[in-house]
């Protein structure tokens, strides 16, 4: 318990940041028209591909002879990159439609 308190006190600003980010996440989404639900989901999915950064970090720090980590990292980068590129591209395709409608 004491540990938790200490952790809280030491990382106070980080905790402020997290809570504010959560509120911001809520705030930013509320009142989105139904039509945009799918593109929004898709866009959020692309952003969650930010996990690729972890894969890059893993890879950069891996021992060049440690083939286990290297292959794991390699797969992770591929998967993450599919999520990122595919995510943004598919969102853009969906939104292209909306643009057309405006005319």
């Amino acid at each position, binding site marked *: 318990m004491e540990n938790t308190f200490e952790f809280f006190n030491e990382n106070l600003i980080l905790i402020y940041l997290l809570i504010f980010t959560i509120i911001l*996440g809520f705030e930013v*989404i509320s009142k989105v*028209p139904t039509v945009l639900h799918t593109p*929004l989901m898709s866009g959020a999915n692309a952003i969650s591909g*930010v996990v690729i950064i972890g894969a890059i970090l893993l890879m950069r720090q891996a021992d060049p002879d440690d083939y*286990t980590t290297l292959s794991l990292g390699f797969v992770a980068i*591929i998967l*993450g990159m599919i999520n990122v590129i595919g995510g943004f*591209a598919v969102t853009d*395709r969906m939104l292209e439609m909306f643009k057309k409608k405006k005319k």
Partner: protein
Amino acid sequence: MLTFAINLSYLLGAVLFVVGLRMLGSPDTARKGNILAGLGMMLAIIATAVEPLDNSSNNYSWIIAGMGVGGVIGFISAKKIQMTAMPQMVSIFNGLGGACAVILAFSESLPYYTADTVLNGGQLVIILSTLLIGGVSFTGSILAFAKLEGLVRDEKITLPYHNIFNLVLLGIAIVLGALIFMQGADGSLMLVLIFTALSLLYGFSFVAPIGGADMPVVISLLNSFTGLSAAAAGIIYDNQLMLVGGILVGASGTILTVLMCNAMNRSLINVLVGGFGGSSSGSTAAGSGDLVAREVSLNDASIQLNYSQSVMFVPGYGLAVAQAQKAIKEVDDILEANGVDVKYAIHPVAGRMPGHMNVLLAEADVPYPKLLDLEDANAALPNTDIVVIVGANDVVNPAAETDPGSPIYGMPVLKVWEAKHVIVLKRSMKPGYAGIENPLFFHEKTRMLFGDAKDSLQKLITELKNQ
């Protein structure tokens, strides 16, 4: 100085994520928002690639190769995919993100057991959480994909008492996680592997009992899980952007999930413990025994349409299945040329994903002002001569208003029976997604035109042209 530039890029990336997400929420700015978020991601990736690290061997060739392969696969699948299959695509992409987090967490746990890295309790908790959340997101998304593609039938994979089974499974995983934590450095990699396997199994089992058509909601939920797993991985790597970006997606994904449920007039819990797809209700079935649905001939239908003042199309899931969006637009064009006023009534949950109909009709270049939302459409219906229902069913079911025993009771529907005539295009008398009968088909104003939607529409076009 370099550190400053790196940190600034990350910060900018985070701000771009927030702004991008914000802009994605309104039709005028959505596309720009997506591009901005993508820019933020690019910035972040570059910053990560050049960031100075202690004893890094970099392995840039591996990284570039991986990014190349992943990028090409992602780009091509995104471009090749059909409009109507996009939710599936998003689901796979999301699952891969979850898988990525699982691999990261697993790799980071290796040194504790294979090398003699000192184990840090806090880190271990984070690693286990990432494994669990990422794992659920991975297999859950894959199953959601399979269900949407029709590869898996709901009944085949649902056990009796499935929800209890799920709770037990989750309980076991958590207990195992606690065990791994308490054993600390004495633990074995085997246990971690079992924990990972359990997480993957749980993800699968979590999605299994949920009705196939609820998948868009599930995908949104799993998306917020991927965000959370990315945030957890951000703690492992002490990277603020991963943390902030992940939390942002986690929070907004959760809200989006709730909004989607609201649009279907259901609660999230209701969706999660099994939709109405499985349980068939007998409440309205009785009434239909002695009633007969009346058919209309193609010729009659085309004449009626041509001599009406106003026509309202009601597109539904069947339109998407039959890929009839271009055909409907062609009918529209012919009628408009003959002076008929044509509109489309778009129910918020018509089809199988939010905005499904809008996307389809936009693909066929139907102008935006012709699409009426639920309220406007209901206001216009009493003055409409003919309603043409194209593969819709639940969204025009009067039982939602009149029969308190119906599973969709309370959902707002399009009151097509208030128009003068109704023509229904579908293949059979089979029910739609909710699995219930539709009294509308036996209504005195209603005539059925059986057959595949695209087929029927194309025949109508020929008839109309011959007049």
